[in-house]
């Protein structure tokens, strides 16, 4: 069998840190090859080497059997390597065609030959079953469609080898299904695909082979047909991992959070949360399922006081906390694991130790007569670092220097340690690997078992179904259904998230 890409014993070193330690990746023509690894395992580094963004310190790259030196992304393009980025690089106000030809515009007599370009884009789209309208404005099409535009961009430039970087992170279940079909079509038409992911389910479903890397080293390359998720997870993390977190049935107590008729406007002045009602009891985890942009962010920011609610009430333990300043809401007993840990969760240029007292720095023992008590601050920091297994050289290291998973563990440690009656966890495991996810889920359930209320917001259906005791589906700023995770399916949730009404009367609450 011929290999289209061979990366042989690739080594890449940053200072004293070995990011890629003699990794070998061989991709066969016409296969979907998964690249699996934890965060920081070296996947991105390896792909950046292939795409010409980094120069390897050792090893050899062969494309279609020929040794090559990929000195920059243009060389990679010329060799037929295309990258579908996780964060789309599209100009919102341009049409699909304009975005696709950007940088390699076909011209006629000095002007762009837009008709010809549109024709070409349409042909490509039909050939690979992408169903993209070449004349639509990017701002007007869905996230899933925008991703297809990214795919078309690489195809338009003649790519034979497509690298997909965590492509499903932003998609709904239906869109994920469609993407997998597209990937199968691409392969059938002779393309080869490298899929960067840490989602085992996707690998099992769509990939032919998988290469696992751990801490910069190549661990194994397996045929997907001959392996299973448990083996993959164990190889990736280096130990056995549990997928479904064990938990007792919930014992809901009194209502902790009660939201009635909440309306919150977004930055554009539109009602992002539009008459939302929701109750979360002590001793239960309520999961909010929904496609990104249906009011989740505004809901959380209104509860925590970061933005003002237009109308409606939010009560915590019976007390009205609507539109109180954030500090009063925090002191009333709300903990918040924010969606964007870099924007909200941490002061990245502060030592991790000082980040541990971000909400409590002004209280004794951390502050005495207006002065900081660093002994007490760092004692608390060491305790949390130990209890929550935050891997950092020491408590004085800047938060910026920690990996995403460890930053997240630090935030969770801080929030859980304050022992809030209501813990809001927004996308608590985004971008984390199975080991860290398992840890975080356990902590959320632990809080629940101690009688606390937990509100979980996640775009990962697996997570919502796994961890929640009740699932509230949010659509266009309203809770449109409350379902029992044990009695629902991914398909049903997906449909509800897309706005279709429930037909059967079996609404559980």
């Amino acid at each position, binding site marked *: 069998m011929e290999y289209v890409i061979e990366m042989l014993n690739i080594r890449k070193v940053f200072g004293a840190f070995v990011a890629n330690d003699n990794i070998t990746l061989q991709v066969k023509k016409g296969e979907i090859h998964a690249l699996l690894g934890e965060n920081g395992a070296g996947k991105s580094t390896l792909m950046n080497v292939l795409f010409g963004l980094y120069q390897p310190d050792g090893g050899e790259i062969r494309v279609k059997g020929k040794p090559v030196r990929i000195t920059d992304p243009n060389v990679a393009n010329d060799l037929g390597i295309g990258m579908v980025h996780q964060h789309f690089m599209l100009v919102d106000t341009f049409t699909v065609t304009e975005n696709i030809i950007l940088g390699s515009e076909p011209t006629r007599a000095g002007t762009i030959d837009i008709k010809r370009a549109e024709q070409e884009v349409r042909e490509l789209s039909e050939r690979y079953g992408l169903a993209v309208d070449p004349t639509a404005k990017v701002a007007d099409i869905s996230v899933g469609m925008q991703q297809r535009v990214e795919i078309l961009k690489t195809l338009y430039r003649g790519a034979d080898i497509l690298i997909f970087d965590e492509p499903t992170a932003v998609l709904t279940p239906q869109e994920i299904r469609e993407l997998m079909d597209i990937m199968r079509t691409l392969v059938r038409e002779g393309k080869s695909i490298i899929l960067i992911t840490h989602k085992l389910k996707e690998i099992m479903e769509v990939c032919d082979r998988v290469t696992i890397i751990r801490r910069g080293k190549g661990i194994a390359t397996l045929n997907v047909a001959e392996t299973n998720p448990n083996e993959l997870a164990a190889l990736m993390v280096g130990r056995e991992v549990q997928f479904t977190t064990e938990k007792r049935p919930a014992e809901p107590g009194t209502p902790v959070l009660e939201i009635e008729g909440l309306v919150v406007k977004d930055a554009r002045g539109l009602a992002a949360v539009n008459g939302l009602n929701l109750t979360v009891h002590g001793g239960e985890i309520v999961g909010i399922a929904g496609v990104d942009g249906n009011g989740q962010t505004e809901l959380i920011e209104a509860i925590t006081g*970061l933005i003002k609610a237009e109308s409606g009430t939010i009560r915590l333990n019976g007390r009205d906390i609507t539109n109180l300043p954030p500090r009063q809401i925090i002191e009333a007993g709300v903990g918040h694991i*924010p969606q964007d840990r870099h924007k909200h*969760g941490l*002061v*990245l240029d502060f030592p991790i130790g000082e980040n541990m007292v*971000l909400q409590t720095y002004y209280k004794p023992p951390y502050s005495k007569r207006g*002065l*900081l008590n660093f002994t007490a601050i760092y004692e608390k920091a060491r305790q949390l670092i130990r209890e929550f297994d935050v891997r950092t050289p020491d408590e004085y290291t800047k938060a910026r220097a920690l990996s995403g998973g460890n930053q997240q563990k630090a935030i969770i440690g801080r929030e859980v340690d304050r022992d809030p009656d209501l813990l809001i966890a927004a996308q608590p495991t985004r971008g984390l690997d199975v080991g860290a996810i398992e840890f975080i889920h356990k902590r959320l359930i632990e809080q629940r078992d101690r009688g606390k209320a937990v509100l979980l917001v996640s775009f990962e259906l697996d997570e919502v179904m796994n961890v929640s005791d009740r699932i509230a589906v949010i659509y266009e700023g309203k809770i449109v259904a409350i379902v029992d995770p044990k009695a629902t399916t991914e398909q049903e949730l997906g449909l509800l998230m897309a706005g279709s009404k429930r037909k059967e009367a079996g609404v559980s609450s």
Partner: protein
Amino acid sequence: MKSNRLQQLFIPVLAVLLGMIAGSIVMLASGYNPIAGFSALVYGAFGDTYYIGETIRQTTPYILTGLAVAFAFRTGLFNIGVEGQLIVGWLAAVWVGVSFDLPKIVHLPLAILAAAAAGALWGLLPGVLKAYLKVHEVIITIMMNYIALHVTNAIIRSVLSDEGFKSDPVKPSASLQSEFFGAITHHSTMHYGIFIAIAAAFIMWFLLERTTKGFELRAVGFNQHASQYAGMNVRANIILAMVISGAFAGVAGAMEGLGTFGNISTKAGFTGLGFDGIAVALIGGNNAFGILLSALLFGALKVGALEMPSSAGVPTELVDIIIALIIFFVASSYMIRWLLSRGQKGAE
């Protein structure tokens, strides 16, 4: 780690040397003797107790304007208004200095506090506009500089003098001038203000690094979103930061009004002390101790440069260029660091 420390110390020295080499080329190209020129510069800054006294006197306001800019920087703000805050502080100090007859132990602190309060007030307005209306502080502070310049001129003419161009000298009870320093430095204008400037550097360090309020100010400076999330009052902290920054600048004005000049005159243009403060703060790494050193560099260059035309015959225009070159190289120590790392890679 050890070699890093050494490099930290080594780079500014190398930067000054590179700046002097560039300055030498300029002098050679213009037909002047660089050795004579730089000898004059060094002699003019440190060659005699008189010159040392003058250098310290010039360093004093630079420390305070540097601290003012740095304090704002550390809290996420760009205070271009240090110049105007300095001018109103100068006026306030002199006003109090000439208007009252009080024991020195009351009068002098009162005059300095008046300067701090005036500077703080000049910082308050941009702070409030920034916090509540998101008006960029750079625009407001620049405009406040002009207001300060012309308002103080009007007050000097109509209130502090009889349509004249300068005020009376401040009463001895409000003066920072020092017979003792004069005696040991051949009658230089060095005054007690240097102690106030050094104390201010300590205060800035203590306030930012040791107090609970400083924790908040730094957090807001680095990340407003996280500060808001953590329950801090971002608006109040922005305003407070501008007020404190302005107070440092106001005290810098007091150094001129109570120390160096002992009065205030109408000005045709800005003093430049406030704008140089931006460079002092940046070269000092926005750190209190670093600012003491970079203010000394600026003070020494400014005072030493006066000697270059008279003893080496280098014209003042060229002197300005040479001083600017040295500061340019110190400011671009990033470039030197980069060149060094390239060199190290090449050697491997």
